[in-house]
C-alpha cells in the first residue's frame, strides 16, 4: 500500500459578513498553537496536538473577487497519513465546535455532512512534492523522541573517553544484493514517467510540454543530463533586459495590482512579524497569483513536469537539490485563473528564497513568469522577485506543524539511526 502522505486543499466561500468573526476565531486558535496566552473560555478549539495523522495544517482567509467585491473564502490545507475519510473524522474529533468554524462557510449544513461538504470543495494539486514518501507523522515524531532520549541520557552523565570514541558501530556497507534491490525499486518507481509524458502531451499539447520543460531545465546545467540536453537544444536562459532591479524606489510602497482580481492579501510589511518565519525550525508560505490566461496551458505543463519528477524521481528529502522543503504543492484554481502555492519549509524566508534562486532559477521563472507582477527579468531580478512573492503572500491564521523542531536534514539523520 502506498504510504505517501497525502495533501488536502479545500477552498470554501465564506458567507457575506462572516469573515471578521471567523478570522478572530481562527487567530485565537492559531495564537494558542504559537504558545501565546489566550484567554480560555467557550471559544472553539482544534486540539492539533492530539492528532496522530496530520503532518501540517493551515487555515487562511483569501479574497474572492470573482464572487463579488468584499467576498472572501476559507483555505484549509493539510498533509495527512492514511485515507481522506479517516483524516476528516480525526479533524472533527479534535475540533471542539466544528459549526463555529465551518458554519461561516457557504454550503455547510452541519457536522453530519462534513465529509461530503469538504469533498465537494476539495481541489486537486497540479504538482505535489513530499520530502519523505515512506514516513508517517508518527514515525517521524517517534524518531525525534528517540533522538531526544539518546541526547538526554548522554547529557545527564559524564562520558568517559572510550565511550565517546566507541559510541557507535560503523554502518554496514551495503551489499551487492541490497543495492540491486534499491536500484530495481528506483526503476519501478521511475517507470510511469513515460505515461506521465504521454498524458501531459495529450492534455496540454506538445508545444507546452516541450517548451515548459526546457524552461525549467535552462539553469540546471549542473546535472549532466540537462547539460547535454540544453546543449543539443541550444536551451539558454534569455539574456537580461537590464542589469538594474525593477523594484520601485520607495522601499515600502504598496504593491499595485496589475489586473483586477490580482489579490493583494495584506500589506506585506504588516504581516511579517506574526508569520513566525524564523521562530522555530519550520515555516510556511502561501502564495496566490493571477496567471495570464493565454499561458495557462504552459503553466499546467510545467506543473505536470514538476509533479512527475517529484513523484517518480526525486530522492528522499531533496527536490532538485533543495533540502529545506517538507511539503509543497501548486494548484491552478478558479478554472486556471489563479495559481496557489503552498509550502512547508525550514529556516528563514530569506534563506528559502535564496536557495530556490541558486538551485532552480529557471524553474521559478517557468512557474511564475506568466503571473502578473513578476518582474521583467524574472527571478533574476532578485529584489523585485522577493517583492513579488511578499506581496502575493497570504498570511495564515492557523499554522500547525506536527514536528516543528525538525528540519528535513534532521529527519534524514534521525532516519539513519
Amino acid at each position: 500500500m502506498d504510504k505517501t502522505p497525502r495533501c488536502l486543499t479545500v477552498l470554501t466561500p465564506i458567507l457575506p459578513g462572516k469573515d471578521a468573526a471567523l478570522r478572530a476565531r481562527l487567530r485565537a486558535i492559531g495564537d494558542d498553537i504559537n504558545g501565546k496566552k489566550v484567554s480560555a473560555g467557550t471559544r472553539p478549539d482544534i486540539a492539533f496536538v492530539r492528532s496522530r495523522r496530520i503532518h501540517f495544517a493551515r487555515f487562511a482567509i483569501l479574497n474572492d473577487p470573482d464572487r463579488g467585491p468584499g467576498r472572501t473564502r476559507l483555505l484549509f490545507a493539510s498533509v495527512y497519513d492514511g485515507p481522506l475519510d479517516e483524516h476528516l473524522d480525526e479533524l472533527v474529533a479534535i475540533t471542539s465546535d466544528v459549526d463555529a468554524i465551518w458554519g461561516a462557510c457557504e454550503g455547510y449544513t452541519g457536522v453530519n455532512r462534513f465529509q461530503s461538504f469538504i469533498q465537494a470543495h476539495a481541489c486537486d494539486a497540479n504538482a505535489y512534492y513530499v520530502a519523505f514518501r515512506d514516513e508517517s507523522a508518527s514515525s517521524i515524531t517517534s524518531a525525534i523522541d528517540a533522538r531526544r532520549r539518546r541526547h538526554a541520557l548522554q547529557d545527564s552523565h559524564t562520558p568517559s573517553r572510550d565511550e565517546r570514541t566507541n559510541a557507535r558501530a560503523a554502518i554496514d556497507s551495503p551489499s551487492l544484493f541490497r543495492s540491486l534491490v534499491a536500484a530495481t525499486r528506483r526503476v519501478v518507481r521511475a517507470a510511469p514517467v513515460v505515461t506521465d509524458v504521454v498524458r501531459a502531451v495529450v492534455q496540454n499539447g506538445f508545444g507546452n510540454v516541450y517548451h515548459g520543460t526546457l524552461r525549467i531545465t535552462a539553469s540546471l546545467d549542473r546535472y549532466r543530463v540537462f547539460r547535454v540536453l540544453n546543449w543539443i537544444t541550444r536551451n539558454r536562459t534569455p539574456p537580461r533586459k537590464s542589469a538594474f532591479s525593477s523594484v520601485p524606489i520607495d522601499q515600502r510602497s504598496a504593491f499595485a495590482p496589475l489586473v483586477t482580481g490580482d489579490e493583494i492579501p495584506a500589506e506585506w510589511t504588516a504581516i511579517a512579524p506574526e508569520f513566525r518565519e524564523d521562530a522555530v525550525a519550520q515555516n510556511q508560505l502561501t502564495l496566490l497569483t493571477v496567471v495570464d490566461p493565454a499561458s495557462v496551458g504552459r503553466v499546467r505543463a510545467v506543473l505536470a513536469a514538476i509533479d512527475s519528477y517529484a513523484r517518480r524521481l526525486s530522492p528522499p528529502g531533496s527536490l532538485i537539490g533543495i533540502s529545506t522543503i517538507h511539503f509543497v504543492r501548486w494548484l491552478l484554481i478558479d478554472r486556471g485563473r489563479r495559481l496557489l502555492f503552498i509550502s512547508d519549509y525550514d529556516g528563514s524566508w530569506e534563506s528559502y528564497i535564496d536557495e530556490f534562486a541558486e538551485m532552480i532559477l529557471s524553474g521559478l521563472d517557468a512557474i511564475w513568469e506568466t503571473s502578473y507582477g513578476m518582474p521583467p527579468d524574472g527571478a533574476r531580478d532578485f529584489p523585485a522577485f522577493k517583492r513579488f512573492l511578499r506581496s502575493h503572500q497570504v498570511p495564515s491564521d492557523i499554522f500547525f506543524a506536527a514536528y516543528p523542531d525538525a528540519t528535513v536534514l534532521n529527519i534524514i539523520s534521525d532516519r539513519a539511526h
Partner: protein
Amino acid sequence: MRLTDEALADIQGVITSGYRHLPQAAYLFVRMTDLTGARRWLSRISASITTSRRWPVERASANVKPQSAINVGITAAGLRACGLPSRVLCTFPSEFQDGITSPERSRILGDTGESAPERWEIGGLRSDPVHALLLLFASDETNLNALCAAQRAILELCDGVVELRDSMQRGYRPETESEPFGFHDGLAQPRIRGVDGRGVATGEFILGYENHYGLIPPTPVVPRDLDPSEILPPLSNPYHSMESLADLGKNGSYLVYRKLQQDVAGFWQFMAREAARGGRTDPTTIIWLASKCVGRWPSGAPLALAPDRDAPDLSERDDFFYSDDPDGLRCPVGAHVRRTNPRDALKPYPPRQSLSMTDAHRLIRRGRVFGPPLFDPGVLRRASIDARETLPEMRDDGQARGVHFFCVNASLKSQFEFVQQTWANNPRFGGLNDNMDPLTSSPCDEKTASRMTIARRGAPAGAGAGALRTQVLPRFVTVKAGAYLFLPSLTALRFLGRAAADT
C-alpha cells in the same frame, strides 16, 4: 571590472582598507539637532575623510601610508536630522530605516535578554539617539588624541552638533592580533573584485556595482529638485528613467556597529569544566575544546588543515574547504568560523553551489579590540606550563573587554542579518539539532538551550549519541551598543553638507 581611480577617490577608505598600519582607533558618537550646524559639520569633515584612493608609491616601491584615517557613518535618524525628507528616506532599505533597535531587527539578530537594546550603553532604546559615528584611526595614542581633539574642535564650531556624553569608545589592534578570548582574529576577509581583481563581486560591498547575482541592487535616490546644483550623479536605472532622480547611494555602503563584550574568564572556565567532565585537566585538551568551538586554533590555523594540534605556520591560510569533511570530524559543523563562512560545505548543497551561495552572504569585518587583555594569549599558542596555571584558574577582573565589531555590506538584510539569523543563531544549522554559534549566540531560555556538538569518527553530530556534546553553553558575548549606518560616498557627503531645505 576594476574600479576607476575616480571611483576609489569617492569610496570611503574603511570599505577597502582595515588600516592595519594604524593600530589605535577611537569612535565618536554624534547627535545633530540643528540643520544648519549639521550641514556645516558634514561639509567640514567631508574634506578630511579618508578615501580608497591608492596610496602614492614613493621610490623603492614603498607606499606612503597615511598616518591617520577618518571615516563617517550616518544612521537613518541622522539622515533625517541633516535634512533628508521622508521621500528620500523611504528609498533606503527598510531594515536601515527601522534601525538596529527595532523589535523586528532584535528578533532576527537575537538581541534579547542581556543583549536587548533596552540595556545598551550607546544607541539603545534608553540612550540618546546616535546620528553619526566618526571612526578615527591613528598610528599611536598621541596621534589619536590629536585627531580626536581636532574633530572635537570642529564639532565645537558647528551649532547643534554634539558628541554624546561619555560615549567615546577606544579600540586597538593588538600586536598579537588576538581577540580577548585569545584567538587570532580578522582572518579570511573577502576580497572585493573591483579592488583586488578577484574575489567577491564589488556590488556585495559597494552600491552601484553588480552584485553576486549580476545585478546592480536598489540604491537610495534623491529627486533632482533637491539637488539643483547636480552634485550627485544621475540614477542610471532604466526602470526609473521617467523620473528625474539622482543616485545618493553610488559608491556608498552600509556599516554595522556592535559593541560585543566578552566574558573571557567565563569562556575558559567553561572549557576547563567541560574538559574536566571528560576526565582531562591538561591545557592541551582545554585549548583543543575551545578551538573546536572556534574552528581555528589560537594561532589562527584552521582546524580544516590542522585538525589535531595548533600549527602556527598555517595561521594566515585562507585556501581551505570543508566539503571533504561533511560530518565535521576536523572542523565541527557548528564551529564559529565554519557557520559564519561555510565555504563549499553549506549542507546539503554541492560544493560549487555552496560556494556561490556563501558568496552572497559575505561580510568585510573592520572590528577592533577594546579593554585590556585578561591574560597573555601567548600561553595558548605555547600550550605551556603557563597555560596549565592560567586556564583553569582564570578569574574575571571586573574590567570590560571585547570587540567593537564593524562590518561592511551592501545589504544589511541579506548579508549581516542573514549570517546572524540563518547561520550563527540557527540551532539547526547544517543538520545540527540544538547547537547555535558557541561564541556569539545568546541562548536565553531552556527551549533554545544550545550545546556545542563535536562529531567523532563514526559518530556524526546529527542524531547519534556518540558525538561529544557539551553542557548548555552560557552566554560568552553580550551586545552593549549598536547601530546601522550608511557609509556615504564623498560625493553623497558633499551633497548632505549642502542639501537644500525641503519641508
